[in-house]
């Protein structure tokens, strides 16, 4: 009984500490952005790494998501005789939910894990200490460009995902099942309002932040991990944790944003 309470207390303290650490980390990073030097190149490099190099995966994922969504909706709508609604159904599903969430999951797998491992290895190899000792703020030099890169790249990828997905849906609905093209696109114009787009945009920004935030903070504080494991094992464990944690973060915040904005 006492052991259980003790363990509960221990866990609680650990979570408070974890959230405090994450909050301070983000605050320090954002504060570092206000100080000169303001350098554009590192941010562009991160946009390239997170964004440009994920484009192909996003294109493929987008097309097939759009296609399968159209397939499912067509099958449902045809029973009610309202296939004219196909365009709006596909567009709304992609813009509000599937686009932001699936893009985020792709980015977690491709870039989030890589960022976490990279920062973790830098911590292990004393490179972050070296930056500190050279009077170069690691928050500004390493973390801030990645966070900004994520905030720009993830919404951009999401937009690509949605547009490509809509055309994937068009291919299945219009080309394969013969829904009228005018109905497909006009239904979309009529039902999708700015609020829906806005919801997608907010989500993709929040997801971009969560992904890079979790990846960098886990890697950065690798040496403080309470498992006390360093080296290759520490990096692999931390990277796995970061992927799990940011996936859950994305899904939970997705629900919260939907609940607030709907």
């Amino acid at each position, binding site marked *: 009984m006492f052991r259980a309470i003790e363990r509960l207390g221990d866990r609680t303290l650990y979570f408070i500490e974890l959230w405090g650490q994450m909050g301070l980390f983000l605050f320090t990073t954002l504060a570092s952005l206000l100080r000169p*030097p303001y350098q554009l190149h590192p941010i562009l490099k991160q946009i390239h790494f997170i964004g440009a190099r994920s484009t192909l995966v996003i294109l493929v994922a987008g097309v097939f998501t759009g296609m399968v969504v159209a397939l499912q909706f067509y099958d449902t709508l045809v029973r009610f005789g309202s296939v004219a609604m196909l365009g709006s159904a596909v567009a709304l599903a992609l813009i509000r939910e599937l686009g932001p969430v699936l893009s985020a999951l792709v980015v977690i797998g491709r870039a989030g894990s890589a960022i976490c491992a990279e920062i973790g290895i*830098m911590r292990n*190899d*004393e*490179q972050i*200490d*070296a930056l*500190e*000792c*050279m*009077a*170069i*703020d690691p928050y500004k*030099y390493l973390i801030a460009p990645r966070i900004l890169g994520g905030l720009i790249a993830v919404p951009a990828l999401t937009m690509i995902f949605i547009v490509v997905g809509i055309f994937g849906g068009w291919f299945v609905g219009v080309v394969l099942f013969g829904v009228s093209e005018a109905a497909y696109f006009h239904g979309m114009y009529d039902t999708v309002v700015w609020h829906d787009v806005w919801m997608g945009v907010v989500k993709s920004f929040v997801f971009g932040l969560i992904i890079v935030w979790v990846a960098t903070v886990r890697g950065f504080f690798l040496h403080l991990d309470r498992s006390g494991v360093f080296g290759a094992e520490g990096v692999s464990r931390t990277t796995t944790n970061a992927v799990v944690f940011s996936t859950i973060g994305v899904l939970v915040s997705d629900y919260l944003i939907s609940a607030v904005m709907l």
Partner: protein
Amino acid sequence: MNHSAQPLETPEAVDGREPVIEVRDLVSHYGERRILDGVDLQVRRGEILVIMGGSGSGKSTLLHHLLGLKRPSAGSIRLLGSELEDLSKKQLYALRRRMGVAFQGGALFSSMSLRENVALPLRQHTRLDEETIRIMTRMKLEMVNLGGFEDLRPAELSGGMLKRAGLARSLIMDPELLFFDEPSAGLDPVVSAELDELILRLREALSMTIVVVTHELESAFGIADRILVLDQGRVLVTGTVEQVRNTDNARVQDLLNRRPRNEPVDAEAYLRRLTGMRD
């Protein structure tokens, strides 16, 4: 076993030169575990101090404190005239521009060439033009015998070369104070001797104050003005090479003569330590 500290202040050590580092009664914890237990030390301008000790002696922790990377549980550290505890982040960074640190494995960034690595502090802290940066970088790399390797990446270099490249980077801002973590660990004796030679030359040519952390006896005796022997978080002895050699502290004599500790259980760990395993 006698574990009490025996400070042996030498006439040279307390002569007129100003102290660059002053540590008083430093206590440090890692979680619940006490790593440093009342460490005192002083380094004067132009001096080479070697901090010596085996694995787990607390020497790496002491170095982290001297660099301001870790906050002490108790005690004070004065560096180049400033109390570390009192400094804001900005002031600490200003102080760090006056010192250089060469890390054990070089700690170079794998995504950059050697030239970019060494030039990094210049690019971040100065507005020098490309040509000047190029010349300065080349000079420092030649100083550590790495001229001509500028375009290689860290992954293409050997351990000794990485260490020397890290040294070149730490010298690029012409620091007054240089820290060198384990210059000889993992190197063959010839390369290690060359590095020792280089450290001595740096002091001669640039009148730097140098703090070296090592577990290598040979290297320590070769370069030190004074040696501080650390064991289990306490200072066993500080003094000149002669004083340390002649001390009657049993533990220090054990270390010097490579005798295992009394407990036979520790023999293996001690051997491992002497053969140069990392902390």
